[in-house]
């Protein structure tokens, strides 16, 4: 496993246009990512919001959108500050160490190939690794399983 990046490749049985919308429409993104965003994603702009999972609403969502090349590439950077707890006044995270998240889409015979990478881990100091939705080790992992079960149940009953 590389120590700088994580790469995931999945094939989705849905058209590229459908996947693009699920990734870049801020409401749809929030549905599966479990975050409530304040407004649409705009290239070059900050995206703010908060995590919606019960018990984690005090955690902010903060990202800076990089690229939005329709049906091809959506990317944003994630700052890794010491804390992502909500504050009364919006904080500036532009000087914090970051990782880069990229979603690349390509059409396949059966749908869409989605390649997700998160990179920049080699520049992340050790004390910034445990950020927001990553710092609840067992607890969060357990809750992720619950969500997964809920969503697949919803998908089969629909």
């Amino acid at each position, binding site marked *: *496993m590389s*120590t700088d990046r*994580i790469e*995931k490749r*999945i094939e*989705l*049985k*849905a058209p590229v246009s*459908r*996947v693009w919308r*699920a*990734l870049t429409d801020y409401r*749809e993104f929030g*549905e*599966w*990512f*479990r975050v409530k965003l304040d407004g649409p994603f705009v290239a070059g702009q900050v995206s703010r919001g908060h995590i919606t999972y019960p018990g984690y609403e005090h955690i902010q969502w903060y990202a800076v959108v990089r690229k939005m090349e329709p049906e091809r590439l959506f990317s944003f950077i994630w700052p890794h500050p010491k804390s992502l707890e909500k504050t009364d006044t919006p904080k500036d995270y532009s000087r914090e160490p970051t990782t880069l998240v990229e979603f690349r889409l390509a059409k396949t015979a059966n749908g869409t190939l*989605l390649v*997700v990478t*998160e990179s920049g*881990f*080699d*520049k*992340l*100091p*050790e*004390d910034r*690794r*445990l950020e927001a*939705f*990553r710092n609840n*080790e067992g607890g*969060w*992992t357990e809750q*992720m*399983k619950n*969500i*997964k079960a809920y*969503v*697949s149940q*919803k*998908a*089969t009953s*629909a």
Partner: protein
Amino acid sequence: MTAKRRSPEGVFAALGDTTRLSLVRKLSRGQPQSIAHLTAGSRLTRQAITKHLRVLERAGIVRSVRAGRESRFEFDPEPIVSLREYLEHVSEQWDQALARLTAFVEH
């Protein structure tokens, strides 16, 4: 304290040298070793080996322990292991988020 500030970049930079990599390989067998021992069989001088050991020490990959009047060096796998564990954790969360995305677009 320094452990918390260490960056993986420093770890990689420290490992990006054949002499240092071979020192880490020797030390990763477990036993703390003296500079004399680590210099033996190498074409480098004791001073050169010491300099390389200090680079590894600053990166947190090896640490020196006193044994009587001499310093010995031992391997510290913690920075490498903790980085790998963190990446596995992040990787697992991406798997779960993408499983939700799959359910979301396919149903």
